[in-house]
């Protein structure tokens, strides 16, 4: 049987997409060398469109040159999944964890990420479910409330999930979200009549659902997490 599982949580607030990407690359490397425990980044991004490894930029419906006018950036990544939007009032979790140590394959890992968002939704009386085959993500009926895009390198995860608390859904009109043409995007605000607590509280609930579903016995909160580590700068 495996020993006690420890998760270190970094609550980071607003982080620029590229800064978060560089931090993840460093943490993946550290995790692979067992320098750090399983780590979970909890954050939000400024308006950002991202593409996955398949580079499905035909799903971006406005010219890239116009993105600046709407205050958004575009980034190409190595994660799985199609095009998506990240922005304020969307809760993002980037788990940097060792799947081999926890005994999960890609499929089971992604299912647990889906369950994390489904469980959070249920706290607000919202009945969400995992997507049908080929439509990984979390849905309320025909409307998508949570997206997933993951990278696994030497068994260590990066990227993760994005849960719509109350983002500006108009940004999604400029893309074919996740490459699925006939489905809407929604948010917790839209789906529940419950009064929402502070976003910080919702982020903490999401982290709590994650740590419980993944079986972490010990959760520690990193003091003053910073993009820059103690000893080096991100060049």
């Amino acid at each position, binding site marked *: 049987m495996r020993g006690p599982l420890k998760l270190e949580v970094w609550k980071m607030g607003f982080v620029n997409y590229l800064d978060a990407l560089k931090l993840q690359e460093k943490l993946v490397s550290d995790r692979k060398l067992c320098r750090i425990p399983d780590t979970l980044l909890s954050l939000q991004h400024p308006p950002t469109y991202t593409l996955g*490894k398949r580079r499905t930029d035909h799903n971006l419906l406005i010219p890239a040159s116009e993105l600046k006018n709407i205050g958004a950036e575009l980034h190409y990544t190595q994660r*799985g999944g199609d095009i998506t939007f990240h922005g304020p009032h969307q809760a993002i979790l980037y788990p940097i964890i060792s799947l081999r140590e926890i005994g999960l394959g*890609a*499929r089971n890992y992604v299912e647990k990420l889906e369950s994390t968002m489904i469980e959070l939704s249920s706290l607000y009386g919202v009945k969400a479910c995992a997507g049908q085959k*080929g439509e990984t993500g979390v849905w309320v009926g025909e409307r998508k409330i949570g997206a*997933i*895009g993951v*990278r*696994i390198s*030497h068994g260590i995860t990066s990227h993760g999930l994005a849960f719509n608390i109350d983002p500006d859904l108009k940004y999604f009109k400029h893309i074919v979200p996740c490459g699925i043409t006939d489905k809407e995007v929604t948010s917790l605000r839209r789906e529940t009549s419950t009064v929402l607590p502070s976003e910080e509280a919702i982020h903490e609930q999401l982290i709590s659902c994650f740590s419980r579903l993944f079986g972490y016995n010990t959760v520690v909160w990193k003091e003053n997490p910073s993009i820059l580590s103690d000893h080096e700068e991100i060049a």
Partner: protein
Amino acid sequence: MALTMWASSAANALRISRASKPHLSLAFSFSRCFSTVLDGLKYATSHEWVKHEGSVATIGITDHAQDHLGEVVFVELPEPGVSVSQGKGFGAVESVKATSDVNCPISGEVVEVNSKLTETPGLINSSPYEEGWMIKVKPSSPSELESLMGSKEYTKFCEEEDASH
């Protein structure tokens, strides 16, 4: 899938009551007995296989690996002529919105890649040891093959890996 149908009829024969999600629970309990492992191949701990025939080694991922990945929708492969190193990534597969690096079990030069995987990436799931082969390599250090596992060792490795969690 054939595996879940088999498992369901086995469950009925043994009169095991079905849980609310029979596909998930039954498939899990039988998967480690029924992931195929072929004799005559060598295996890496990262779940790739190697078939060494003369001066060429064919490489792919195992049945255990494809089962844990889910349906493969995209495969990234190197160009012929590229060098590969033991333990380093040579490509990636995407399944369930996750890209997973695939590591090379041996070092050498890529001489051929399976172009069918561009159109039909699902061959990795349906035929991981045959039509789903990924690359062919001219090995630079054939002795590296000795550090890999044989079929019995790999079977045990998979069982231990699945049992410990």
